[in-house]
């Protein structure tokens, strides 16, 4: 019996160690990480956070004011943490958390009762470009924030699908294949959205160059 008890103790210790000392690496798959997180492994969830924070940030930035995005990123992951048990296919973690982020952005507008137009504390009135039909141009040497705001406003005036893809590419620095892998969209959809969106953006920015 003593052997049996020792085995049980070893077994329990092993389980506890697995929960407290994550052996996960950058190469670990989403499904394994999500399953481990669901079993209580905070380290695994942390890796998922590292992997998906940029994508969630970009999805939100396409829809809500810049000043609100950082807080909402945390909200989205906390919401995901609380709902991990409802994620049926752990391999779909990316598409799932992207959906939570889009929903959180909708919710932000519903709660603020302001779904008319995005405004931003980093945007100057003359740079929002929101209903203007004039082509927007990047200023020659303005303050960095104002220049970024003008470019962001131009992207935000595009249709939603283009907006999200372009922000993930140009703001978050993700490549097309990475966007497809992280958001769960097909490579074809991302490619179409990215190229057509870029074409529209060039028109908005008053450029003659075509992508």
């Amino acid at each position: 019996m003593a052997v049996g008890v020792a085995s049980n103790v070893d077994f329990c210790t092993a389980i506890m160690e697995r929960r407290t000392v994550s052996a996960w690496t950058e190469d670990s798959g989403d499904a394994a990480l999500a399953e481990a997180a669901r079993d209580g492994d905070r380290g695994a969830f942390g890796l998922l956070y590292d992997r998906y924070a940029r994508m969630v940030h970009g999805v939100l930035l396409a829809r809500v004011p810049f000043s609100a995005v950082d807080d909402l990123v945390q909200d989205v992951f906390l919401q995901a943490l609380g709902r991990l048990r409802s994620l049926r296919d752990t391999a779909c973690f990316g598409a799932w958390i992207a959906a939570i982020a889009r929903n959180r952005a909708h919710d932000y507008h519903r709660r603020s009762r302001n779904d008319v137009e995005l405004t931003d504390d980093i945007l100057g009135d003359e740079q929002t470009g929101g209903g203007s039909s004039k082509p927007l141009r990047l200023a020659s040497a303005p303050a960095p924030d104002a220049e970024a705001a003008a470019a962001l406003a131009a992207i935000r005036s595009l249709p939603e699908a283009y907006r999200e893809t372009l922000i993930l590419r140009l703001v978050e620095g993700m490549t097309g294949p990475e966007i497809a892998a992280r958001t769960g969209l097909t490579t074809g959809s991302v490619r179409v959205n990215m190229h057509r969106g870029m074409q529209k953006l060039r028109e908005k920015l008053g450029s003659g160059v075509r992508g």
Partner: protein
Amino acid sequence: MDRKENSKYLWDGSGEPDPEIQRLESVLGKLAYSGARPGFPDIVPAAPWWSVLPFGWPMRLAAVSAVMAVAALVAVWFVIHRSKQNPAPSGSTASEWQVARLAGAPRVGNTAIENQGGLGPGQTLVTDNRSRAEITADEVGEIEVDPDTRLRLVPSRGERKRLALDRGVIHAFIWSPPGEFMVDTPSATAVDMGCAYTLQVDDSGAGLLRTTLGWVGFRLDGHDAFIPAGAVCATRPGIGPGTPCFEDASPALRAALTAFDFGPADQRAPALDTILAQARKRDALTLWHLLARVDANDRGRVYDRLAKLVPPPHAVTRDGILRLDPTMLDLWWNELGLGDVSLWRTFERSWSESDSQSRGKAR
């Protein structure tokens, strides 16, 4: 710069850099995510129920085995019993929607939903004249189901992404990516393009779709209608989607549109006269759809009126529109400022495949 090289740089950063994209990356990169991983609260995994048993491992194991054996017997009985009452198609991999009762006693199959329940592939949610429900799928959206409604989850390859509204009213708020979620009605399929909308179907199978946010496509056998926020579109069995119009269009235009879409053939010409006379700039939505719906002899009149309201882009010619050149029609649509039709075209092929598969399974 070589167009292909330029395109490669945009796609994955390889190839010859595009100076304009580099400039945007440099400017916009300042807004990128730069936070650090926060401290997350402890994740409390579901405690295994057997951990509460007050005795040691051997006894626990025996108790667990006994309980599992009983549970397995109960489950087998339940599956057999349930499949007789409310059969779910075999081979489906789709998961359930969560169902919450909002009022009365909504049912899934023969089972009344007391508070929470599930709607599986092939199952039907039914509300009577006093009950309401809400169904939710994390990766799709949430839908409120009004009284006197029958709503089915259609087994499909795109799990939980296709419902069928046989009768009644639903209010859908969808956050699934555009083009993935569809609702079949007896006379058309509503394709979500990122939006909120209300869809109703009466006992004859006639339907009405009202978009409140984003836009929705309504289609039957390649016959399409694009319905942006603020617009409505009716549909009739055997005919399919009518012509969409904005809800604030004049009553005369809306009445004429109903006569044009669904009335006797001899009413179409006078109805078209009224529509053209009543159309405002905003009603370009309606006129664009009419281009493909009027007789060839009337198309020139519709072209002329629409061109006055929203001039066609350079690449669009009168001749091209009169012969319904699809590229020119799409270019003109994009000029209306109601969304980019290319998104719709992108997903069309996969919808067609999905259509044929789900119809085969639904029958």
